[in-house]
């Protein structure tokens, strides 16, 4: 039923070119990363490698995968991400839904209760003491629970619920005797697949990439997530490069680290990001038009 008018054809072409251009602009640095990951770091550092690999070497990847801890790290991160994301959704969705409902009394209070946590926080040390008080230190829960939800996701999800779940639908179901539980599980959730997918993705990616909690809360190396292991391989904390360089006797070792870092830093990116890049296309199916219509009519 596509309307093939002239202007629509032009629109389609221009739109195609627009997306193509943006994709091309974005793709160049990506190719650079991939090429750099298998090029001699010397060529990368002197600007000789600028598009395709130069003096191909797989040393970067070999170095990353030679570290046995990396597989444990992968496993841990996958476990943390899966469990963390499930708990995230389990807490987030009901809360966001409840906040989206008109009948909720003292909604302003609840909103601010949530919003306030986005604006102020007590800092790392008090939070650590709470986590420690709950006996979570050096367990998986220290990675999964602190930060499991945030004000931002609640408020965004709530706004989606407000738009996609019509009041009439809720009222009609309630008149039919449906409880909130029933309504939420049987009607609201199936109607909200896009936002659920987005929230799951956002949280999973955040969990996947975070290392600081692990640094603070974990001391058992068997529990270390992937990112922490990768950081150890990368060793050089480039932010503090200056102070490291001044350490006596270790200019040489620092130079070694710089070389290792330039060798592995691009490989590390690929190793850590690949699983998430593979997952994404599967999530895209949830962003299909017209999820809403059928169910509302029923």
């Amino acid at each position: 039923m596509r309307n093939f008018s002239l202007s629509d054809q032009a629109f389609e072409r221009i739109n195609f070119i627009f997306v193509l251009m943006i994709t091309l602009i974005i793709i160049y640095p990506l190719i650079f990363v991939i090429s750099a990951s298998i090029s001699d770091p010397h060529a990368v550092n002197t600007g000789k490698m600028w598009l395709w690999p130069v003096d191909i070497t797989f040393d970067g990847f070999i170095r990353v995968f030679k570290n046995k801890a990396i597989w444990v790290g992968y496993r841990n991160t996958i476990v943390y991400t899966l469990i963390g994301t499930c708990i995230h959704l389990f807490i987030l969705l009901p809360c966001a839904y409840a906040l989206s409902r008109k009948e909720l009394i003292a909604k302003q209070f609840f909103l601010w209760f949530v919003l306030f946590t986005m604006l102020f926080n007590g800092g790392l040390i008090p939070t650590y003491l709470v986590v420690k008080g709950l006996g979570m230190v050096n367990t998986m829960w220290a990675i999964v629970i602190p930060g499991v939800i945030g004000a931002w996701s609640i408020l965004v999800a709530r706004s989606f619920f407000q738009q996609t779940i019509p009041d009439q639908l809720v009222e009609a179901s309630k008149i039919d005797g449906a409880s909130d539980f029933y309504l939420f599980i049987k009607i609201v959730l199936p109607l909200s697949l896009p936002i659920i997918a987005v929230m799951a993705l956002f949280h999973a990616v955040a969990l996947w990439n975070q290392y600081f909690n692990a640094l603070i809360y974990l001391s058992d190396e068997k529990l270390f997530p992937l990112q922490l292991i990768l950081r150890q391989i990368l060793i050089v904390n480039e932010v503090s490069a200056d102070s490291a360089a001044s350490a006596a006797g270790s200019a040489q070792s620092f130079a070694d680290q710089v070389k290792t870092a330039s060798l592995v830093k691009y490989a590390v990116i690929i190793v850590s990001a690949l699983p998430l890049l593979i997952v994404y296309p599967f999530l895209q199916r949830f962003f299909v038009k017209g999820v809403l219509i059928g169910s509302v009519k029923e």
Partner: protein
Amino acid sequence: MELQQEKKSLNKKSRTYAIKKSLLRNWQLYVFLLPALTYFFIFHYIPMYGVQIAFKDYFANLGISGSPWVGFEHFDRFFNSYYFWRLLKNTIILNAYGLLLFPLPIIFALSLNELRAGAFKKWSQTLTYAPHFISVVVVVGMLVAFLDPVTGLVNHAIRGLGFESISFLTSPDWFRHIYVWSGQWQTLGWSTIIYLAALAGVNPELHEAAKVDGATRLQRVLRINLPSIMPTIIILFILNMGNFMQIGFEKVLLMQNTLNSETSDIIQTFVYETGLLEGRYSFAAAIGLFESAINIVLLITVNQIARKVSENSLW
């Protein structure tokens, strides 16, 4: 049923009774809230006493509660710093610049949404999403590689065209552009995701009706799709305001040098350099509080404006 009877008798009863009734009838909603509120209470409100450290001189051995009060000393020091105005100005401009590009992901999402489903759509979506996973260290490393005055690709091209090399990395004039646009490169695809999800909720019936009325594709995008996701746009914009003063400072720090600090020196890097490095917990906390105060004012202001001009707002 019971519910209907309650509804009939509702207006006869007092207001408190109505509230009680509503609570009873909707108790499940409050159960829905409970896990989240419990979480926030334990992990955010209990540690909140840490905020007082901004008004204290932190002695780790005395703990936060036991450290001596110093009132507004840390704030005074910050406000009286020679660099205060520069820091404030740079922070605000850098954020405002970033905010100017707020519409880009929206436009890109609308565009992507108009593509026919197929390989190209899938690929462009995935490729534009990929840069989000590149760490800032590597992003800055690439910027240095591309923009280097001698070996950089960009300057090769500039010289090829017969112009002089530009020292992008040490120029205060270029810093903001490089920072913001490289950030845009990294987040464009990622930021479209949420809008694509919103677009998935657009009612196809509206499009069918518009087609019958003879609307062109562009018209339908602008008059149906855009308004449909407007609430999402507004909410995201308001929430952005709640984080206005916080910038991912690690990237700024990596890009900063003495020559571009005229524009690259922001509050967060200042705190990092003069605060955390010297163990001045309290000072950092005080500045954090100052930022929160600005954020909260902005958040409320923008929310009020949004409420006036559109029907959408956070509260």
